[in-house]
């Protein structure tokens, strides 16, 4: 009570700031709380985690497997594996990072099984179809060119090896930070940056010939 007014205001402000920081930390750690409950047998907690993160995981899976059915299968399998291996999850990493790592591994496994080749063939067929059915109402030539570039990029991305495609999706589509990418891939931050660089170069190497054909 005997403190000066400004000193008291500073004290109250610092208390308020700490409270806000505490709330933020609590919110970030709520995933860890749900994981702990799920480990102890609370399946409702795991369902809560599913509802929280399924959109993010689905976006990533769809970028990796551009068919919705395949992406949904990957997401479902990822959460099943997460449930199976909850005991292996360490609280130091974000739960989403751990999930995306599972999805990356699943996509890698699927690519190795060779099913990807069949999808590529289907995409090449559908890619031509998309190109031919673009919107030509306003600027036919411009729209045609834009659609062609979009299709070319889609094909090139789909044709990338899974280890290149995953880092392109993580960095350039999902805009995740390099430390997260490093945790997902299980490498250092410098290693993640290098992998992103190589993937971008590989993508351009596939796109350039297709775009340069007209020139």
């Amino acid at each position, binding site marked *: 009570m005997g403190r000066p007014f400004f000193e008291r205001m500073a004290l109250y402000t610092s208390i308020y700031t700490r409270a806000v920081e505490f709330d933020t930390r609590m919110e970030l750690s709520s995933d860890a709380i749900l994981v702990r409950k799920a480990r102890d047998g609370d399946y409702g907690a795991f369902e809560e985690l599913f509802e929280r993160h*399924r959109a993010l995981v689905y976006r990533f899976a769809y970028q990796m497997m551009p068919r919705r059915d395949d992406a*949904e299968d990957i*997401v479902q399998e990822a959460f*099943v594996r997460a449930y199976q291996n909850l005991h292996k999850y360490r609280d130091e990493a974000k739960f989403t990072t751990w999930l995306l790592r599972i999805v990356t591994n699943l996509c890698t496994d699927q690519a190795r099984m060779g099913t990807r080749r069949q999808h590529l063939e289907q995409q090449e067929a559908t890619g031509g179809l998309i190109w031919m059915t673009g919107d030509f109402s306003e600027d036919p030539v411009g729209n045609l060119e834009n659609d062609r570039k979009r299709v070319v990029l889609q094909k090139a991305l789909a044709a990338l090896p899974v280890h290149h495609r995953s880092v392109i999706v993580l960095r350039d589509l999902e805009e995740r930070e390099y430390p997260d990418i490093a945790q997902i891939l299980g490498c250092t931050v410098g290693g993640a940056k290098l992998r992103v660089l190589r993937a971008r*170069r590989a*993508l*351009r190497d596939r796109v350039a010939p297709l*775009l340069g054909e007209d020139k």
Partner: protein
Amino acid sequence: MNRKSEEQIIKLAFGDMDPEEASRIELEAARDPEAARVLSAYREIRSGLRERSTQIPPDQLSKERLREAILAQGLSPKKNAGLPGWLWMPTMAAVAAFGYVYLKPRPTTLDGPSVVAVNSGDLAPKVDLHVPSAESSIGIGMAPMVAKTTPTTVKESAGTRVASYSSHRRRKRTVVQEPKSDLSGLLAMNAISGEAGMSGGTRPAEVEMKGDATAMAPSKPEETTIVVIDEQKDALTGAQRATEASGSNVIVGG
């Protein structure tokens, strides 16, 4: 263009560079046509990827599908744990102790007429159904007598072997009071007609015979006697009636 230059152009195109270094590379690229072309190509790729990232169709995932997938893998989603783990042990111990104390089987009253083999010395009224003097239509020798039921409480004795019958079997108890006549001298018997379990028509007698002294002759002290306990309780005393039978005229069915 060397590899290092291309790496810098890639970082510039995708925004992975500090603003100061970015402006420097931008100026260098402007002076080099090939660098400018490569920078333009990478920027087109980046814009195309950004456009693609917004074209995500909605998913059809659901919690039910996930649960089915988990169950299909043989994993069982557990229910809420409820108590913390460290509380389970004393809780289970308390439940087990409660179950032992309150749910352990206790000796209960018999539901139906039971055949009890007891030492004959423990029970007072002894009835010997052998009445050799009179002839009867039922083939049991009996003297003219008056049937009378005597309530007898059931007493437990050491080494008692109890054969109880299921409660669903109905017992019909009839007491025939025979007028004093010297005709057939039907033995008034407690027609506690057991059913299948007492097949053969075991007729546990609950009468106290008056008459021939020989009929009242107590059995030998060491002889095993069969006591039949009636399920119906006496209206006056509230106790179950028991009659003792010995000899070969009691058939115990099982």
